[in-house]
């Protein structure tokens, strides 16, 4: 009997056949013949594998169990080469990888414009040829053959590209300063620390299209005159680090990185460095200290990194997405780029939609789109038919915006004026069940823990604020707390050294401004309107509704619920820690909150 190392099952469902399954099968046989492995692979017909409507024509490959879907004549060659010769799954057609991908980056909605996310899920990030096939590295070729460093800087200036790391500083200007700095060597740094909880745009770009960032960095290096670069990536992103390392290695093999790039005489090397779980290291001076191998504490600016950065040398720092914009601008031109966006913010921005919104995941829109369009038209509105309460942009240094701000266009100036910030692109939608005092407390806990402790207002002030908020949530709030919170916020904002301290009060100030009634309910009535704060609520089981199914008792983490099967259950209030699990698991709405 012949020995086969693999078996391919081809779906022969009538719909698959109609969609070309027979031709695909013939082609696979041809391709295997061509690769001289036809005798190693057994090919069988299968009545049906996946859903023929959405996934046909599809095949299943054993022993790996890889399910490849929606195959086209063009897919056969790469599939055979990748799977059978190189021995790795071809992401583009793999059902498993698509499922994973779909959850984070869905098919674009009508109002979206995909520039940065364009290639994600479509190309194999571990195969440089895929990137090159989408005109990748063409911008670099153009730069190295047709443009002077000054031309490049002028073009980036004219594009009005602004840094995507949060502050929105004009990238062309930053490059100009770094170019003008006298000292050498100069360094290029990519900020891939992405510490804002709720944001994962940068991770997705590094994992799905790493060469776009590398290409942007090489072009930047040419413009400012640098020959060594670093990508500082947070330790929580091991897959991004490994993908990036593969991409760097391949770019070097192709002469697109390293010595004498594309034979132009220009050389630039790139290395990945990892963080170790400190949010403040996203701040540029702290990031530099961390690469140098020290504690990641921010320092006073000026001097700015452009004149004194890594090891005291001129250093240009940009965010992942900022770099990823560069090749697109250069290759497709200014007219195209500046046609997208608002007056002062050009191009597109990626956002990570999360929280109580129907469709979570990454999206990309031109600047200037309203929050309402993003949350409702793209995000599908609020989950489970609940009511919208607030949207939080900009991470822990951002603010919470209420319903009346939903029609604001999203750009740096507008969000800033409304008391929030653009930040790096986290957008967390909160529904009516969210307690805004608790959210303020949550963010303050974050900043208090992440404060590096170097300056007093930030270190001590955030602790004071946290204590007050904790007391309010626990039912011990007093009327004086509100003016006290306001003045503490003002002090921290004024006197802190870095953006962490300066922005820390934003969540508190914005909730005080827009949701003062919730603070007052906690303080004066000892009531949490959203029924979240544990000291201010209690859970009871309704005798009428309880069927005695015992689910709640089995799930209670502190065994506070007793009752016989088929009889009404009872919560022992002395033991109950008010976690709400019983409320959530009861299928009969029998657990009520007061």
């Amino acid at each position, binding site marked *: 009997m012949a020995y086969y190392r693999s078996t391919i099952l081809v779906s022969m469902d009538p719909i698959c056949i109609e969609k070309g399954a027979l031709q695909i099968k013939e082609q696979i046989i041809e391709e295997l013949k061509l690769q001289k492995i036809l005798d190693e692979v057994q090919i069988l017909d299968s009545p049906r594998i996946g859903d023929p409507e959405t996934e046909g024509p599809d095949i299943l490959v054993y022993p790996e169990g890889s399910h490849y879907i929606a195959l086209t004549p063009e897919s056969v060659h790469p599939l055979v080469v990748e799977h059978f010769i190189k021995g790795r799954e071809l992401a583009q057609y793999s059902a498993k990888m698509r499922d994973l991908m779909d959850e984070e980056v869905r098919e674009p909605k009508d109002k979206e414009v995909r520039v940065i996310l364009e290639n994600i899920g479509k190309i194999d990030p571990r195969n440089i040829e895929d990137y090159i096939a989408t005109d990748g590295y063409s911008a670099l070729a153009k730069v190295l053959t047709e443009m002077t460093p000054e031309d490049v800087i002028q073009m980036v200036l004219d594009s009005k590209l602004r840094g995507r790391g949060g502050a929105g500083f004009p990238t062309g200007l930053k490059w100009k300063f770094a170019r003008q700095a006298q000292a050498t060597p100069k360094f290029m740094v990519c900020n891939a620390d992405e510490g804002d909880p709720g944001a994962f745009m940068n991770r997705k770009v590094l994992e799905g299209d790493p060469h776009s960032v590398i290409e942007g960095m090489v072009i930047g290096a040419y413009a400012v005159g640098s020959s060594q670069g670093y990508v500082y990536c947070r330790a929580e992103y*091991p897959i991004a680090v490994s993908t990036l390392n593969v991409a760097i290695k391949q770019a070097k093999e192709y002469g697109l990185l390293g010595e004498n790039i594309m034979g132009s005489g220009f050389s630039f090397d790139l290395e990945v*460095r990892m963080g170790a*779980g*400190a949010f403040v290291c996203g701040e540029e001076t702290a990031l530099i200290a961390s690469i140098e191998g*020290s504690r990641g504490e921010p320092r006073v600016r000026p001097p700015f990194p452009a004149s004194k950065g890594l090891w005291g040398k001129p250093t240009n720092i940009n965010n992942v997405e900022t770099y990823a914009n560069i090749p697109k601008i250069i290759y497709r031109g200014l007219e195209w780029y500046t046609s997208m966006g608002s007056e002062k913010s050009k191009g597109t921005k990626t956002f990570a939609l*999360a*929280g109580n919104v129907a469709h979570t995941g990454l999206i990309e829109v031109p600047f200037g789109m309203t929050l309402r369009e993003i949350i409702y038209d793209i995000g599908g509105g609020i989950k489970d038919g609940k009511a919208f309460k607030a949207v939080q942009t900009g991470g822990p240094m951002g603010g919470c915006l209420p319903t009346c701000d939903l029609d604001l266009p999203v750009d740096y100036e507008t969000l800033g004026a409304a008391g929030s910030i653009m930040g790096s692109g*986290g957008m967390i939608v909160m529904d009516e069940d969210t307690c805004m005092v608790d959210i303020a407390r949550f963010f303050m806990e974050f900043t208090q823990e992440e404060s590096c402790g170097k300056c007093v207002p930030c270190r001590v002030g955030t602790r004071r604020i946290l204590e007050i908020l904790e007391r309010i949530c626990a039912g011990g709030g007093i009327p004086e707390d509100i003016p006290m919170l306001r003045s503490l916020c003002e002090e921290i904002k004024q006197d802190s050294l870095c953006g962490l301290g300066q922005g820390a009060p934003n969540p508190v100030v914005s909730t005080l401004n827009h949701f003062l009634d919730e603070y007052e309910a906690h303080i004066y009535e000892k009531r949490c309107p959203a029924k979240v704060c544990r000291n201010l609520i209690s859970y009871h089981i309704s005798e009428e509704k309880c069927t005695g199914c015992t689910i709640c008792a089995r799930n209670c983490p502190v065994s506070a619920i007793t009752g016989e099967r088929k009889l009404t259950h009872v919560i022992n209030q002395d033991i109950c820690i008010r976690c709400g699990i019983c409320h959530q698991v009861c299928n009969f709405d029998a657990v009520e909150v007061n």
Partner: protein
Amino acid sequence: MTSTTQPIDPLYNPKLRPIIDKIIEDNIDLDGGLMVVLNNLQSKIGFLSAPMQEYVAECLSIPVSKVHGVVSFYSFFTTVPRGKHVIKFCIGTACYVGGITQMVDKAKQMLGIEPGQTTSDGMITLEVCRCVGACSQAPVVVVDEVNNGRMKPAKFTKVIEKVLNDEAAA
């Protein structure tokens, strides 16, 4: 036989010492190499004991106080060994809004320990962290480096039970 209560420090463990030496040797001339060395040691050895820190300081010719300072600054570095399995709760914003606190309560009850602690048999460590970057699947619990998204208390109970059962079966 040596005492089982006082495990030998990795620095004096003949199996681990070559790994430690290799990591240091590979990065000794690297600019900013301290972070790289510590990151590698943390991931290969699992923690950074006091003797290991002193050894790193000596090899890289930097003051021990600087090494201590760096180790204590970053939350990824630990100075005591973790349990065999690590269950990490993401308490980033998306996961907080998504109800991660209930999972923490559940784990505390099932294992009788608080986040930051390890079960007395050294099997499971509970930890919290801020955003693992899988926010579209919030709330997320990371079990031994694998993300478990869209957690619910009942589903999470099964996750912990699986860890305990696999261990009992092994």
